[in-house]
């Protein structure tokens, strides 16, 4: 367990709980934000190792939040994964083109979530 800090951006309370429980059970520490603005603040303040970014959120959405993170040199290098329920075909390509480092569709497959998070954290550590 490396204890990397993962910023979870999610507006649904139940889903947030699922992320929190799965990630902490897997050995990660979590930071929690319920909208894009809050996510950018937390990321700037705590410099997490990975951001799991919901796309559709009130106020600042995931794409805009990503743009702000990339614009700030303190947060520009943090990998950000899109987590979205907009799982229509072609969305993966769309989000990768927007500049996300990866893509997870809801509903999440727990194994896939853990696998993807590990891959990005290890890649960063290595």
């Amino acid at each position, binding site marked *: 367990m490396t204890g990397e800090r993962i910023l979870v951006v999610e507006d649904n309370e139940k889903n947030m709980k699922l992320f929190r*429980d799965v990630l902490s059970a897997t050995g990660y520490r979590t930071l929690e934000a319920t909208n894009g603005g809050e996510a950018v603040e937390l990321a700037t303040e705590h410099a997490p190792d990975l951001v799991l970014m919901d796309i559709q959120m009130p106020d600042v959405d995931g794409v805009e939040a990503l743009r702000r993170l990339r614009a700030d040199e303190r947060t520009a290098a943090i990998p950000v994964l899109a987590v979205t*329920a907009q799982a229509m*075909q072609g969305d993966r390509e769309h989000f990768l083109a927007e500049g996300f480092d990866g893509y997870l569709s809801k*509903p999440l*497959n*727990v*194994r896939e979530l853990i696998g993807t998070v590990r891959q990005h954290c290890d890649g960063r550590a290595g």
Partner: protein
Amino acid sequence: MSEPSPTGRERPVDAEIRRPLSRGYDRLVRAVGRLPAKVSTKLLIAFVGTSLVLVTVGLLGQRVLGQSNDRVGSLGALQERAVAYGQLQRDAWHVRALLAQNVGDDFYGVWPGGDPGDAGDPVALDTAARDAVDRVGAATTVDRLGFAPPAEEAETLLSIRSNAEQLSTLIKRLIDLDKVIVGQLAKIGKRESPPGDERWLLLREDVERLAMDVYQQAAQLGNEKTAQIDDLIARNASSFQNSRDLFIGVSLGAIVLALLLGFVLAWSVIGPIQRIDARLAGIASGDFSGHVDVENRDELGGLAANVNRMNDELRRLYTELEETSRHKSEFLASMSHELRTPLNAIIGFSEVLREEMFGPVNEKQAEYLDDIISSGNHLLSLINDVLDLSKVEAGQVELEVGPFSLREALERGVVMVREKATDEGVQVELSAGPEVDVVEGDERRIKQVIFNLLSNAVKFTPTGGEVDVSAIRVNGEVRVSVADTGPGIAPRDHERIFEEFQQTDAGLEQLEGTGLGLALSKRLVELHGGRIWLESELGKGSTFVFTLPARSASP
């Protein structure tokens, strides 16, 4: 003419590039367009106008011909008179000639005894002269002339006749005197100055003078006629030239007028039609921004007004439709999100439990968790398919058509079902040649169709069975068939299974599948302009076939 422009306001530009010369013409065309009459009425007026001009030309031509004919007629009559008067003139001259033989320098020569052999007998000569004078007199009568001379000529003719009669009387006396002299000479028998000489000479002088008068009168008539003929010919020539010039002028005028009328009228119709056509082309391509500007107060004006109204109405409907469509689109997107969010929690927490991340679950609990997860996933695919289908139905699916390798798409599809097929002991074979290496279509959508057909085929094929996938190019289209050795489908169900939520009994038993896959596949294939159908009988397996129009040939 100008290309249909998206703004629909090409006319002012068009007017600007016109040469100044055609501005007046343009104004005329537009003025004709503004006349408050039907096109048919305008055409009728133009036709009648042109016809009248042509009739005028015809009448004028007829008049010219008539005049020419009249002149030829009067020329003929003149010539007839000229011939008659010429004859009269020659006869009168003959009289003088005969008389001259009897007088002149050779006066004595004519007398017998002088040299009677050389000269004529004076009595015979004068008798001949008298006969000639009588002929001249007779020739002046209407009967002999064969025509009625005009009053002036008739007077002259009358005078000629009376002179001739007088001359004839005088010559008669001269002949009598001749006979006396001849008789005297015969008695004398020698060549001396004959007796009665003075009388004879005086009489002879009178005869000569009168014969001269007759001749001059006849000559005057003849010369007058000749002069008249010359004059008539000259007048005829100049009159013909004038008539010809007038005729050509009026004909040219008529042609120019007819052409002008035709062109002006035609362009007062064609111009607006071209502008209306350009506007309609714009409307047809979805541009409702402009109005067509037609000043005509005829049917075309009405047409343009209706086109403009249609444009406005279409723009309104189009805006409404866009609004509705955007609402529907937003609704679909948010429904997708709203349905998936709770599903995420349901499936996620079930998986967390099933993975025993927070402690062990017993066998029954694990089984139930599996049921929750698979039902959740089933619900997820239903949501996906319903969303896909409603997007297609709403016309929101826009194909991203491009060249792609159908062979690779099929290989990918086979790879995706390979695991399940191997698990169930089903063999999957693919045969696709290089001829389908490049086809036109929306790769993602075609893959969706291929995957749907393949997973159906694997699903319904019993252990030990076989799924054969093939792609060929036939008759200008690409044909993909997926054949299985499953239970087959009764012909009565062949149409039904392509409808939404329609499954065969075998399908319902499978408990998976949404009943939407084939409906969606059918829509997607048809969106490409292809067809999809089923060849199957109960117990003999099923073959699903779909085609794509081969837009581009193999390289």
